[in-house]
């Protein structure tokens, strides 16, 4: 084989993989737009808030993806939907406004693509982030105490302090990162119908 032919073949193969996946992918799913939900008169998927956007970075930096995926699989009677991880399968349009868009390739813990619908209360999410064993003794999810400030409880209780105390005489104040992470988790709510993925 001549060097020029080998070079052409390699460049052609690499280019084919890129063009076919990135360029055709862009053409196929990159131009998707939000759709109007006629019931709520709002567009879906919703644009996440700035706080949720920051929370996505916290989610990534804490390595939650090492155990949790962010994609519900169909069909309607699939294990994912029967478990209550979502009302429908995830589709490319769901990821339209996610930056960074994360997928997660492991499931040691539950899928989180719809955790905002399953667990909407901020207090519960914060408690889980601080120490998952507060809510479930058998949880193997690691605690994240560095996302909270521990201050002595006094006569004045901080309004955003957690309702649980690690020792009875300290209060736990969530940091900005913890609040952002909760906002991100709450934004993971795909309980809306899309033309290509109706609700069950």
């Amino acid at each position, binding site marked *: 084989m001549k060097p020029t032919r*080998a070079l052409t073949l390699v460049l052609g193969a690499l280019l084919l*993989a890129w063009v076919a996946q990135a360029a055709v992918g862009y053409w196929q799913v990159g131009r*998707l737009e939000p759709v109007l939900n006629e019931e709520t008169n709002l567009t879906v998927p919703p644009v996440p808030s700035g706080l949720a956007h920051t929370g996505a970075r916290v989610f990534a930096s804490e390595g939650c993806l090492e155990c949790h995926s962010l994609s519900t699989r169909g069909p309607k009677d699939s*294990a994912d939907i029967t478990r209550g991880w979502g009302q429908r399968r995830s589709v490319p349009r769901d990821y339209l406004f996610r930056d960074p868009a994360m997928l997660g390739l492991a*499931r040691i813990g539950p899928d989180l693509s719809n955790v905002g619908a399953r667990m909407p209360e901020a207090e519960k999410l914060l408690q889980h982030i601080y120490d998952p064993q507060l809510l479930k003794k058998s949880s*193997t999810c*690691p605690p994240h105490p560095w996302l909270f400030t521990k201050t002595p409880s006094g006569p004045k209780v901080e309004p955003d302090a957690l309702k649980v105390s690690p020792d009875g005489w300290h209060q736990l104040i969530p940091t900005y990162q913890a609040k952002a992470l909760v906002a991100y988790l709450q934004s993971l709510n795909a309980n809306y119908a899309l033309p290509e993925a109706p609700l069950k």
Partner: protein
Amino acid sequence: MNRSTLPKGSTAALVLILGSTIWSLLGAGLSLFSNAQLLIPWLDRLIPAPWFNYGRLVPASQFLLSYGWLGSGLLGVLLILAPRFSGIAFRYGRLLFGGALLWQLAILGGFTQILLEGSSGLIGLPQTRFVSILLILSFLVLGTGLTRGLGRSWKSGPLLPRLYLLLGLLAFPLGLGSAEVLLRGTSAPGSVQLIAQLLWHSFHHHLWLAPLGLVLVFQLLPSLTGRAVSSLNLGLLAWSATALLGGWLGTVRASDGPIPSWMQSTGVVAGILMAFVAIANGLLIQNLTEGRWEEIRRNVALRFISVGAWSYACAYVLLAFLSLPWIRPVLTFTVAWSAFLEVFHYIFLGSVLTGSVYALLPVSREMGWPNSSALTWHFWSTTLGAAFVVASLILAGSFQGLALSDPGVPISTLASYLRPFLFVVVIAQVAWLVGQVAFTAVLFASLLRLFPAAAPMAVFRNPTVVRPVSVGHLHG
């Protein structure tokens, strides 16, 4: 040793190989500890600090093993090998040395950043853009040096290693550069970002690391066994198929919704076809090693490279199995995929890299290896350790997949299914680490000439003369 007699690029190769050895210990140590955290969740609470968290240790160890151990090590041994493909010596030794140092700096920077600030969450790109730029710059310097291996007429010298080298040299900068542009240089929509991540995942593993490993397999196995590749046409077919299919293998990791279904189907087809590519290369490897068992037993370099070469075939057969349409929905998101990466990284690339260091470092540094039982320990400990990790992960992944597919099984019990297998994984990882520590000790002792060399394994007799490989320069 007189420094002036050393070939240019020898110091750069040494920096890359030593760096690779140190990163392997650190990366495998962190991987061991993170698995222990999964086994004993109490360990997570030992030090309440973000850098000690499971979610940071895992990407940090993967980064170290992939870019630090394998990337650095493969580039190091190729710097020794490349001038000998073509007979063209390196001209700018200091530039290569700078490139090698820059690569180590990028690894150190990436590792520190992941531990202190966390991963980016992007598949295959846990590091910051700055670290990626350092890696690309360093690779451009080292890769430009390595193009010397492609030089002169292709009619003389081996063809397959050159073709795989060409593939690996182009795939890394193109893949990483375009992934960076698409993921962090522009505001691509989220759905396109997912495709770009999986694409880089394919390039990284199947078009960069695997071809670099195959350069060593198809260069050193013929040199060490004294046989030529039996069918060049079959080799060319396998090479072309690797180039064509390799970029599609990442999409098989996404199951169902997030990316278009035709891409997933193409990934499935590519994954299954890779089994045939692996079998084709396996036939060539079989012909190279058949009847050489005594030599493989005696020569630790040949033993490592043979095990690595066979593991290449096993890795892709496993990938094809995981891609089967009725297996994929069950085993996606399970540790069975970690088993594939374990065979791929630790046994295929790790063994080929180690065998190449045993074979090529004496050429580059005018040194020999001690006739020490540490070499035997190294082989058995790392190979058996990695094999047990793979077997445990496949079993664990199967149970995990079945449990995930059954909605009646609570997700909270999943960890208890994995625990017995994780226990074996942790023990086996300790064994692997012990073997790698033995190798590191032997490597440093040999470089410092702490004991007499008694086990020559060099593939080239005269280290100072750069010339193409032929059967005439086989054994030291």
